[in-house]
């Protein structure tokens, strides 16, 4: 007796059993990001996505709450005369580490969202910060620093 299952269905079943699951684009959030314009330097932690977003030729740091699919306010962090370079957030969404250029200088700063404070983090020995990553518990950051023509990595404990 011939099988009632068409050959194509059998092939599909066999293939389906062999194919690994693929990462799926998160359509609603991607549409939200698309609407913000050009975006770069994403950093995920917990329910938060920090990134650098440009609109009208000016870039600023954005912090998106992925559960509410909305940006949250960051009073005192963005400045019209500053160029953000690299950003990172902790899993609580409390601390944001930022490398930015301001008045011809490059600085590393730490922003605490609950108190809206901005604290400079000095490079010792001196160097030019380029890229920063805050570990998810917010207690330490790693920063790529240019010193004497070499790229180095500093680990900085955060009190």
């Amino acid at each position, binding site marked *: 007796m011939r099988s009632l299952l068409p050959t194509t269905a059998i092939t599909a079943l066999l293939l389906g059993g062999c194919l*690994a*699951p*693929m*990462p*799926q*684009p*998160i359509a609603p*959030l*991607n549409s939200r*990001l*698309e609407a913000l314009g*050009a*975006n*770069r*330097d*994403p*950093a*995920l*932690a*917990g329910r938060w*996505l920090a*990134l650098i977003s*440009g609109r009208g030729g000016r870039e600023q740091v954005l912090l998106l709450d*992925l559960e509410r699919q909305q940006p949250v306010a960051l009073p005192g962090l963005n400045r019209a005369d500053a160029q953000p370079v690299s950003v990172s957030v902790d*899993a609580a969404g409390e601390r944001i580490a930022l490398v930015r250029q301001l008045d011809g200088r490059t600085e590393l700063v730490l922003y605490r969202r609950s108190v809206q404070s901005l604290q400079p983090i000095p490079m010792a020995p001196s160097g030019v910060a380029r*890229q920063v*990553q805050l*570990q*998810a*518990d917010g*207690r*330490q*950051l*790693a*920063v*790529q620093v240019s010193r004497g023509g*070499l*790229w*180095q*990595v500093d*680990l900085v404990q955060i009190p």
Partner: protein
Amino acid sequence: MFNDSSRQEPALSGQGRFLASVVDRGGKATLLLQEQPSGRIVPLRHFQNHQPHSSPSLSWNGRYVAALVQQGNQRMALIEDRASGNLHRLPLPADRTAVRLSLSPEARQLAVQVAQGGQWRVQLFDLRSLLEPDLPGGIAIQGGGAAPSP
């Protein structure tokens, strides 16, 4: 042996137990994973080739290591599961070039910065059907990971 006089793109695991960075190895930008604070090098199964590597990212306990690699003429995101030894690939449409990525510490999402039509874009991918979560308080994976499951 790697040349650690130039080290770039640092990424710490959730509590700082592991540090990933990109170093020069025989003229190729190569992902290096180290335990902290000892600096002990942790072997990776799937990041021996396909240089240049860039933009490493780690989950909370260092179970998952994600980075961009070169495959043919395309940049591709790879995620190595150090617990199972498995490798997960994230192919992107041909009109997009992956530039940077960020793996969420819990391994629930992956953010990829792509260049598309002369503009930077960030796209999010859901990993929950692909990866077990790696949550705070989990156990750090010690060695180079188990052999890949069939």
